[in-house]
């Protein structure tokens, strides 16, 4: 269909723009370094602090540790995949919890009154304070043979950040149907459950999609920060800290980890974009997103 072709060509053009943006940033980075050799800048532009773009790329192929077979790139890839898994786990839990909260708050006014302040207050607790607390409590939990692991704590923290934008967005969406649509459903003697599934939920999609985007981003940030503050091994957060300690000997290495974190974010964004297309394929092409 011409429509699809049009969308693809439009997608190609925006990809070109994105690439142009990256090239521009790289050029500015190098120009800043050159400028730093000519005049005094208020920050350090040495190869230690701001390695050249090409040394960043050559760092991809460095051995992870001296003498090992795995390259930095492979290590970063493995760590980013592991973090992706944790982030998606946390995101999924956050979405489920957020949706349940939104449905309950929509259905029962007293839940909205009673729960909403706590939902909002939950986000005012600083993550740094929360992480050790969750790990501490988690370590005392065991269900028979299943022992709580710190990776669950990371997922929990990701979910903790992810549920909030989703529940707020979903609540607004569930409350979005206009009075006429609701009266129509009432005239059909529809039950509350039918109204939820046949009207409120589909009507909430335009609100849900942007909420999913924010939630997914929150889950990624939550995962990386939680990995750092709980010290969980294997993820991109921990890797960044480790590589940052090596800046004196291999300043470019940490940037590979940063690229890994960026790639992680992009993959998550792509997943959400796919969900967006799936959810909105039946809706007119105007939305809040």
């Amino acid at each position, binding site marked *: 269909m011409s429509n699809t072709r049009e969308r693809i060509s439009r997608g190609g053009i925006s990809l070109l723009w994105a690439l142009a943006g990256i090239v521009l940033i790289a050029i500015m980075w190098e120009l800043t370094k050159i400028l730093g050799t000519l005049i005094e800048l208020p920050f350090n532009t040495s190869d230690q602090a701001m390695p050249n773009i090409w040394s960043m790329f050559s760092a991809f192929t460095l051995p992870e540790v001296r003498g090992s077979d795995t390259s930095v790139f492979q290590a970063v890839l493995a760590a980013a995949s592991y973090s992706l898994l944790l982030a998606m786990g946390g995101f999924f839990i956050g979405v489920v919890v957020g949706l349940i909260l939104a449905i309950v708050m929509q259905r029962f006014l007293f839940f909205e009154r009673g729960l909403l302040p706590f939902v909002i207050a939950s986000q005012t607790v600083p993550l740094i304070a929360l992480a050790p607390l969750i790990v501490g409590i988690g370590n005392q939990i065991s269900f028979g043979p299943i022992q709580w692991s710190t990776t669950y704590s990371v997922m929990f923290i990701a979910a903790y950040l992810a549920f909030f934008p989703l529940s707020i967005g979903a609540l607004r969406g569930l409350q979005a149907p*206009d009075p*006429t*649509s609701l*009266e*129509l*459903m*009432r*005239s*059909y*003697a*529809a039950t509350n459950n*039918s109204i939820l599934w*046949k*009207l409120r939920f*589909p*009507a909430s*999609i335009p609100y849900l999609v942007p909420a999913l985007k924010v939630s997914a981003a929150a889950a990624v940030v939550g995962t990386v920060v939680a990995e750092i503050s709980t010290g969980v091994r294997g993820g991109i957060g921990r890797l960044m800290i480790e590589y940052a300690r090596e800046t004196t000997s291999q300043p470019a290495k940490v940037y590979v980890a940063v690229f890994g974190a960026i790639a992680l974010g992009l993959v998550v964004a792509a997943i959400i974009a796919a969900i967006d297309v799936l959810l909105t394929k*039946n*809706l*007119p092409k105007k939305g809040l997103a």
Partner: protein
Amino acid sequence: MTSPNIVETAGTALAISGVSKVFNKGNTNEVTALSDVNLDVDTGEFISLIGPSGCGKSTLLRVLGDLTEFDSGGIQVSGRSPAQARKERLYGIAFQQAALFDWRSVSKNIELPLELAGWDKSRREARSAELLDMVQLSEFGNHRPWELSGGMQQRVAIARSLAVDPPLLLMDEPFGALDEMTRERMQNELLRIRLDTGKTIIFVTHSIPEAVYLSDRVVVMSPRPGRITAEINVDLGERTELTRESDHFFHNVTAVREALRLHDSSAVSSTSHRGEI
């Protein structure tokens, strides 16, 4: 005030006696939306409710559909309370906005009340095809509502209101948002559907020609408090291309207009003002 023709009644579709409704009771902005409303509607009759804003015509319609509660009096819809009639799906309703669901195709919109009434898929599809045919939109079943013009959307809404084949149709200014040409075409179509189906129809409007053209009886209402002030029987017989241009049509329009003016306090004061000059 009262309708004289109680001959050859095929049964009473609607019996409204002494119905009152007050909004914001006890508040400073208390409004008597309906005050002692009495109306009997025969099966198969087409009734228009007409009057200025705030006369309670929409409220009356919503009370009949159990979308709003009333304070006192009695209502029988096909011999049942409005709540019971709603639960038994004994009426269909159409509003000024078509209120079609964007995420459903046109046919699926018509099938919505059938799904809720527990019809199985094959019966639903057969019924929606039949109704699309009735409103002359057969080719548009798989279209999305937003791809349709306003008049087409309203036809889908009417088809949907007929889906479960209820004996009573409640219509709240369904053509209010349409342009004049589309509106007249829709009026003819509604009359044709009425002939085909024999539904009892309660039609809220504030267009006098529309009320006269469509109805067997025009019920005139006036505000503060909302009440019925006149009932005018329309005796135009079968509507044709020429009906709207006939003298007889204008006589009926004039009768309704005068009934409306009689109880419109603002109109009275403006006439007296003109008299002074």
